[in-house]
Every structure is written in structure tokens, then in C-alpha cells.
């Protein structure tokens, strides 16, 4: 008898979300972490959400996950980014109080009865016949389970650089997981090396706030969870300052002492999060760079200066920071550092995030080459759900590019791999107009309910909302108005004789729910949130209809799965070159196969026919 169904290794954002998802699905789950009190720690910037990232958090919430709930409880400055642009590109974001966030994650996890949290170091995996059966801890004790999810973050062969000093470690103050790294290295998976950086941390009590601009949160804060409507914690503002020529001079003069520019780092860093060294070198014509001073907590004086991550020596950091307006007398409480770490090429995973070469083994989070809490948590969710499905003998699920940002991310990772730490952007989603943060529940919660991943409370709340939205839409769609009637209600429309419903005209410029209520008085009886959501759904209808045909084609290709055991060498007529490429890539479905470089329609056709053959025999 196995001790657990699912083992989650690591208590970061991927691990916490994976453990919660698995436990929510009813699997007996154990989360093993080096430090119990560090579960849910935000080790980089103290913020959740943003563009693309906020979408991911909403999708996690649609699966009844914990990240959105924790962010709402810990949020101290909520802002809906792109508030003045269309709903498809609006992303919720909040500054989070580190301590409140960690506490929220820990208390949310404590609510799961089938989840055990264990402190210890995982030394190795138990493997039987190419199948994972559990883990061995550093103290020699064994824990058995059907599935193991590794969420090792930057702990794998982590090296921290401050100037020309370096030491092994995953995060300042934590030991790296060398034992586990060796074990995983034996699996012969492709590996790569990435880097990321952090800025120096400042003592907020030594910042001269009076000379700085401040950025308050929104007047009407937008929450992450579909279940919450207002912040839990007190709200604060962030400060804004900027670098100047003197800062840049100091950085330039000391470039040779930077770990990155001194040649100590081989890993690839993200283009979208350049260090101050990078900014000064690559954008030499800019005479200043903006810095957001983000408080790390309500009762914590630490301030995170977002925009000046660095791997310069501590004394140089001290000098350049003090050259900045408002920071003339600032005390650096912890110098910034760069960290290099190993990741495993995510092309070695299937769309359930299971390692293709090892049944029962799942990877989620930074270990797959991503960056960001939200990206990590979203993968944790997928791995947790699928590990639970595996343990209960049910087939894996994968999310489509056409239904979620999570699907976009996992398809990107498993098809293309990464060349820099992967971060979500709304521009990665080709069906962006349909994949909005505001409709994540409409897109995904029904699916989550079918999987048994959603609590009773949320099911009821979701169903009630879904019914109201359907009713509102039907109400607005069932009556068509003449241009004259529309004009009388204040809707600008050409007198072309075409009759349009109130739902149709909600897509027009300047048409608001008030106009709709003018045309269909009963619409006013729906509460404001339902009215607004109906308007958001109506806004892009014509574009979404145009995309639907593409989506159908995509889903058909995604639906045709290629079994992991599929033998490509058994296909006569397929070129050797393509056979080799397919064997390396092991595409999960025909859509992925179609994207392999050099794939021709003829070869795809052959592949389809061979993939289909067994199922047809089975039917016969």
C-alpha cells in the first residue's frame, strides 16, 4: 500500500499550488519542503499579477486554486493595469505584503484535510521499471506514492553571484538541492542554464519619501479571486524615482566588477527584466530609468526598488543607489545578487507536465525554464491535477491554446522550449480577445468542476453567475431594434435599415450598459457586475466569431493524441530526418507534430494515418 497518492517536492508557488490542486481532487498528498515556515515565500519582488500574469492567476482561481485567494488577502496596493484599454488586455496586479502572503498560503493549505506538509530534504527518487514510485529523504526514510511532482525552482545547482563573489545556493540563506540534482541528472534529460537577478533591498525608514512621486492603488480595487470583492489588508502607495547620469557613470565605471559583465555567468537572462548594468549598456542613449519603490509589507520597513536588479559588488550597489533622488541616505539591508540555476528542457514533458521518459514524474515551475510566481503556480496547478488523475487511474487533461493562457504557456514550453526565462505576455496568446482575465471562470470553471477540482461554495457561486450572464445575454439578444429606435436611445448608428439587438450594439464605440438598459429596461434589474460582464462579452463578438474557425481546426489537431509509446520507425515513407526529429520531440498530439521544423503536409498525413490505425482496429 502506497503511503500517499501524490508527493510534491518543494513549497514555492508551483509546489503550493500543485499540492492544493492534488488535495482538492481528493488525492492523499504530501508536500515535502526544506523549511516548513518558508512555504509560500515570495523570494523576488513583492507583487502578484500584471499583464498576462494576472490572467494566469484568474485562471488558477477558476480552478479553485489558492494563488488568487492569497493575493487578495495579502494585497496592499491593487491596480488594474491597462484600465483604460479594452478588457482583453486588462491585467489585475497587486503589491503583496510578504508576510501576509506567506501566512495566507500556509493557512489555505492547512484547510486541506488530505494534505500533509513534511519538512525534509528529498535525496533521490524511487524508480521501478521506468516508473516513479516515491522518494527517499536525506535521512534515509522512504515515502511511496503513484506520482511525484518536482518543483525545485532555482535550487538545482544554484549559484549566487554578488560581484565576483559566488557561493552555492538557491535563494539567499538556503542550501541548494545538490543530491536531488544529481539524481535528476541521471535521468539524462536535456538541461540548460538560466540566470535571474534581484535588486538591493532598502530600509524604507531611510528613504526621503517627501521628494518622491507616489503611486496609489485604484480607487475601486480589482480582486484576483472571483469570490472576493474587496481587499483584506490596509492599502498603501508605492514611490517612484529614477536613475540619473551619475548613477549610470558609477555603473559604467564598475562594469568589469559585475558578475554578468565580468564573465562569471554563463546562464541566459531574460530580455524583459534587464539588470541596471544591461540597461546602461544596451540603452546608452537614455539618461534615466524609472524605479518603483515597492514596500514589502505593512509592518516591514524593507523596500524593493523595482528596476535596478544587479550583480555588482555590494559597495558599488551602495554607491549607485545613493546617487538616486530620495535615496541619498538610504541603508541597503541586503545587496542585490544574480543567481544561475539549471532548468530541464520542457520539451521533455508532455502537456500534462509529466516527464516523457519517466512515468509518474512531473515537473512544474522554474525548473521548466519559466520565471514568475504566476507562471510557476499555473504549472503547479496543471501538474497537481494531472498527478492526481494519474494516481486515480484517470486520463490526463491538457488545456488548449484556444481556451487559456495556461494552455498557451504549456504549449509554448513543451513545443518550443525556452531560450530565456519564460514569462507570460498577452501578446503570446493569439486568441487574446477571447482569453480575458474577466472571463476566466466562464472559460474554465465548468471544466474544473467536471474534474472534481472545485469546492461546493465556488460551484454554487459560479453557477449562479453563469445563469445570470446567460439570462442577461438572452434578454439583450432577443429583441432587435431599428436604427431610429437605437438613435432614440442615444446609440450612434447609421440609418442603414439593419435591425440590431442591444447585445449587438454593445460592441459599438461609446455604447454602455446604460444604453442597453435604455433599450431593454429589464436589463437594469441585473446587478452592475453582471451588466458589465455582459458588455465585455459583447465587445469582441465579431472578432471572436472570425477566430472560431481557426480554433476549431486547432482543437481538431490537438484532439488527435499521439501515444507516448508510438513507434515512428514503423512508418514507411517517412524520411529518416523527420523520423529522427519526431523521436527527439515526441509530440503529444498532431498539432505539436505539425509545428516541428521541416514537417510537410504529406508526412503529417502519413503520421495521422498511422496514429489512427490502432484505434480503428480497436473499433473493428
Amino acid at each position: 500500500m502506497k503511503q500517499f497518492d501524490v508527493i510534491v517536492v518543494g513549497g514555492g508557488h508551483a509546489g503550493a499550488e500543485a499540492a492544493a490542486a492534488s488535495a482538492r481532487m481528493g488525492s492523499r498528498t504530501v508536500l515535502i519542503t526544506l523549511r516548513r515556515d518558508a512555504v509560500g515565500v515570495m523570494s523576488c519582488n513583492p507583487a502578484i499579477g500584471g499583464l498576462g500574469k494576472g490572467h494566469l492567476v484568474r485562471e488558477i482561481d477558476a480552478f479553485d486554486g489558492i494563488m488568487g485567494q492569497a493575493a487578495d488577502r495579502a494585497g496592499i496596493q491593487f491596480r488594474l493595469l491597462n484600465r483604460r484599454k479594452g478588457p482583453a488586455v486588462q491585467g489585475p496586479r497587486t503589491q503583496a505584503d510578504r508576510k501576509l502572503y506567506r501566512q495566507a498560503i500556509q493557512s489555505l493549505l492547512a484547510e486541506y484535510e488530505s494534505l500533509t506538509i513534511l519538512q525534509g530534504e528529498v535525496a533521490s527518487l524511487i524508480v521501478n521499471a521506468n516508473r516513479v514510485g516515491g522518494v527517499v529523504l536525506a535521512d534515509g526514510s522512504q515515502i511511496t506514492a503513484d506520482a511525484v511532482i518536482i518543483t525545485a525552482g532555482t535550487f538545482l545547482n544554484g549559484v549566487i553571484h554578488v560581484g565576483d563573489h559566488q557561493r552555492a545556493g538557491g535563494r539567499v540563506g538556503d542550501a541548494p538541492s545538490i543530491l536531488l540534482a544529481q539524481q535528476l541528472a541521471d535521468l539524462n534529460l536535456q538541461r540548460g542554464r538560466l540566470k535571474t537577478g534581484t535588486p538591493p533591498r532598502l530600509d524604507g525608514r531611510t528613504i526621503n519619501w517627501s521628494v518622491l512621486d507616489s503611486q496609489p492603488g485604484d480607487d475601486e480595487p480589482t480582486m484576483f479571486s472571483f469570490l472576493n470583492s474587496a481587499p483584506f489588508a490596509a492599502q498603501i502607495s508605492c514611490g517612484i524615482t529614477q536613475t540619473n547620469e551619475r548613477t549610470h557613470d558609477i555603473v559604467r565605471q564598475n562594469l568589469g566588477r559585475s558578475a554578468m559583465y565580468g564573465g562569471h555567468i554563463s546562464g541566459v537572462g531574460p530580455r524583459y527584466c534587464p539588470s541596471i548594468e544591461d540597461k546602461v549598456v544596451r540603452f546608452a542613449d537614455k539618461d534615466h530609468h524609472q524605479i518603483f519603490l515597492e514596500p514589502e509589507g505593512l509592518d516591514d520597513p524593507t523596500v524593493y526598488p523595482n528596476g535596478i536588479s544587479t550583480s555588482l559588488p555590494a559597495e558599488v550597489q551602495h554607491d549607485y543607489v545613493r546617487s538616486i533622488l530620495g535615496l541619498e541616505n538610504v541603508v541597503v539591508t541586503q545587496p542585490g545578487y544574480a543567481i544561475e540555476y539549471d532548468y530541464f528542457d520542457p520539451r521533455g514533458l508532455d502537456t500534462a507536465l509529466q516527464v516523457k521518459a519517466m512515468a509518474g514524474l512531473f515537473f512544474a515551475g522554474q525548473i521548466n525554464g519559466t520565471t514568475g510566481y504566476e507562471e510557476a503556480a499555473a504549472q503547479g496547478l496543471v501538474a497537481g491535477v494531472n498527478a492526481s488523475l494519474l494516481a486515480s487511474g484517470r486520463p490526463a487533461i491538457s488545456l488548449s491554446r484556444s481556451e487559456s493562457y495556461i494552455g498557451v504557456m504549456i504549449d509554448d514550453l513543451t513545443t518550443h522550449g525556452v531560450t530565456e526565462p519564460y514569462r507570460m505576455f498577452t501578446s503570446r496568446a493569439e486568441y487574446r480577445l477571447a482569453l480575458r482575465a474577466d472571463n476566466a471562470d466562464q472559460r474554465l470553471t465548468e471544466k474544473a468542476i467536471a474534474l472534481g477540482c472545485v469546492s461546493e461554495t465556488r460551484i454554487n457561486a459560479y453557477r449562479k453567475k453563469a445563469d445570470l450572464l446567460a439570462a442577461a445575454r438572452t434578454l439583450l439578444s432577443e429583441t432587435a431594434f431599428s436604427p431610429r429606435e437605437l438613435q432614440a436611445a442615444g446609440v450612434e448608428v447609421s440609418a442603414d435599415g439593419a435591425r440590431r439587438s442591444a447585445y449587438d450594439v454593445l460592441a459599438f464605440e461609446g455604447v454602455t450598459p446604460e444604453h442597453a438598459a435604455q433599450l431593454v429596461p429589464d436589463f437594469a434589474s441585473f446587478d452592475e457586475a453582471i451588466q458589465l460582464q455582459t458588455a465585455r462579452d459583447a465587445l469582441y463578438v465579431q472578432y471572436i466569431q472570425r477566430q472560431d474557425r481557426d480554433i476549431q481546426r486547432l482543437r481538431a489537431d490537438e484532439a488527435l493524441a499521439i501515444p507516448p509509446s508510438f513507434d515512428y520507425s514503423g512508418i514507411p515513407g517517412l524520411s529518416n530526418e523527420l523520423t529522427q526529429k519526431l523521436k527527439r520531440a515526441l509530440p503529444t498530439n498532431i498539432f505539436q507534430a505539425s509545428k516541428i521544423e521541416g514537417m510537410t503536409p504529406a508526412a503529417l498525413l502519413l503520421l495521422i494515418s498511422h496514429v489512427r490505425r490502432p484505434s480503428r482496429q480497436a473499433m473493428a
Partner: protein
Amino acid sequence: MDTIFALASARGRAGVAVLRISGPLAHWAAGQLCPLPPARQAGLRVLRHGGEILDQALVLPFAAPHSFTSEDAVELHLHGSIAVVAKVSEVLAQMDGLRLAEAGEFTRRAMDNGHLDLTQVEGLADLIDAESESQRKQALQVLSGAIAQKVAPWRADLLRAAALIEATIDFADEDVPVDVTPEVLALLSRVHQDLAAEQARAGAGAAIREGFEVAILGAPNVGKSTLLNALAQREAAITSDIAGTTRDVIEVRMHIGGLLVTLLDTAGLRDSDDVVESIGIARAKQRAESADLRIFLLQQQGEVFDVAPRPDDILRLAKADLATQAAPAVSGKTGAGVEDLLAEIASKLETKTAAAGVFSRQRHMQALSTAQTALGKAITALPRAGDLPEVIATEIRVALTALEGILGYIGVEDLLGEIFSSFCIGK
């Protein structure tokens, strides 16, 4: 599922051409052209569209699943004329929900619908390979030639425009330019105009089928009609010594250098008080504008007409038999210089044929047209770039995807690369 159509028989002149339509709207679409016979029965029908007769054809409908693709399908056995096939294809392409099939798509559908078994597919693989072989050749041509050169700058412009818009969306919180509208407008307008020009130029492709128009222009009584008759080798136009003999446009169809050509004789260009002659002169100018090539017969070098000159105009001194100046001259009367003139016409038309070949394929034309329509919409929506940038981004993406269908795949990484190399992202 789209309804698709394509010529199922070989291209070019033939006794019969088979056009195949497959998909849920196949019967509806064919039914727009004629009453359909029962399934699996051929019927002779007159195909009509908007009151115009397209062709008389043998029409053969198939009902799902008893067709090559397992879908509803119709075969139109047309007369094997390039013009008929083009016309019927054009009519079908205009119907909502129909599009031209991609290479191998009928076979793919047959496969997807489980209609073909493996041995049949393997038999068909040869056929499909033949198509990808031509695709390979085409790709090679693109590699070394004009399509890549034409599309690359459009792609770069659109990528830049998309990056500007996307930067304002994905990095709203960062130090990126806020008002990108002027640059985006300039980029989109440039591509939009180029696409329009390219589509217009593709008219030369149609001219290969329908014949090039070559107009003869010049002052009254310089011998235009005499030249026409000499070129056509028959008395097509009345000639006389009286200035202004030719008043209307006279057309003669003939072959020059293996190409079908319509020669136009026109009224002499001069100021005239005669109402009828003035109409003739106006027509001459109009045809001069629309002609594919113009021959100007000059009384002396440097003579200027009220017709905008083009770089490829052919200039000849008239009445070579009487000529005293040392310059290229022609005489319809003696035939002097006629061979030389014919050679120059042939060579200039050949150049046009080659230029037209770049975007001659219907698939390319559809891509250009899709891209142009999307850009038009994006330009219209541009004043709202502040509050609905995602809609403009969507249209640019449609245009990029259409053009990328000609050249190859564009990933979002290209887009992000453009953003990151242009702006300092990372607050």
C-alpha cells in the same frame, strides 16, 4: 469546418476541367449556380451567377459520406478553358464560408474523416509529393527572387507596427512610448498602399490570359493607322492623307512574341473644335492611360503630348521613309523599322509577364487581399489606439498571418524580439 474548392484536373487548356467543392456548404454553393441533380447522378446544367451565364457544365453532386472526402461534395465538369475556370473559381471564392483548398487538403480531409485507408493514402502520397515538389520549386524561386524581396519589408513594417502596439499593451507599466499612433499609421499606410499597388500590378497576370493592350498614339496624320495595318498585316483601319481620319478607337487582336495582344489605333492628339473628334481624342487619352504599353509616333524628337509619359513608352519617329533625323523611326508605308518595333513590343511585354508572375497565384492574391482588408480595418480603428489597441493588434496579426502564409511562419518571439530590441523593458 470550411467548405473548400479547387481545380481537381490539370491546369491550362483542356477538353474538360473538373472543379471540386467539398464541405458542409458544397451543395448550397453549387446550388447557387444551378439546380442540382440528385446525388451521384450527373446532369447537364447551365451555370449562372447574377444573371450572367458562366458555362455549361456536367454537374455531379455527392452526399456525405459517399464522396472522396466523406463530406458533401460537388464536381463541376467545366469546359477546359482557363477563363471559365478562373471565373467560376472567382464566383465561388466570393461566397461566404468558401475558400480555395490548400495543397493536399482534399486528401487530408479524406484522411481525417477516416475515408481513406493506409494503402490508398500511400498511393496518394505520390500525388501529394508532386505538389510539394512544385511548392519546393516555388519556395526556391521565393528564396532567390522577388516574393521574398517584396514581402520582407512589409513583414518588417508590420512587425514593427505590431511591436509598437503590443508594447503599449504588455508593458503599459514600463517606460515605453505612449502615443505610437503616428508611426503605426505611417507603417500601416505604406504597406496598405504597396499591397494595393501589387494587386493592381497583378492585373498583368490576367492580361496574359485576356491579352495585352498596346496603344498607338501621336499627332494627327503621322501614320498611326498605316502602322496599325502594317503591324496587323491587313487593312483594319481606314487611312488617308486627311488629318483626323481616325475618330474612334480601333482594336485589332494579334499575336506578338507568342502573347495575345490587342493593338489600339487612336485619334490623333490635338486641340479640336470638332465635337466628334474631341470625343475621339478624349477616348484616345483614356485608352492611353489604361493600355499596358504605348507606342508614340513622333513628328520630331522631344514632341510632348497631353498624356502622362511612362518609362516603358516606346518612342518612334513617324514616316521613316521621309525621315531626316538620326533616331529610331518606323514607316507603316515601307515597312522600315516594323520588325524592330515588333521586337521591342515583344521584349517589353515579356518583361511585364515576368513581373506579373511574382504574385500570379490565386493563393497569393487571396493572401494579399486578406492582408489589405485587415490593414484597412486597422487604419480605420487607429484613432482608437488608446482605448482598443488589442483590436488593432488583432487586425495587424491577421495581415501578418496572411503574408506569412506566403513566406513562412512568424512566431511571437519575433514580435517580442522587436519590442525588446527597441525599448528598455524592465522597470
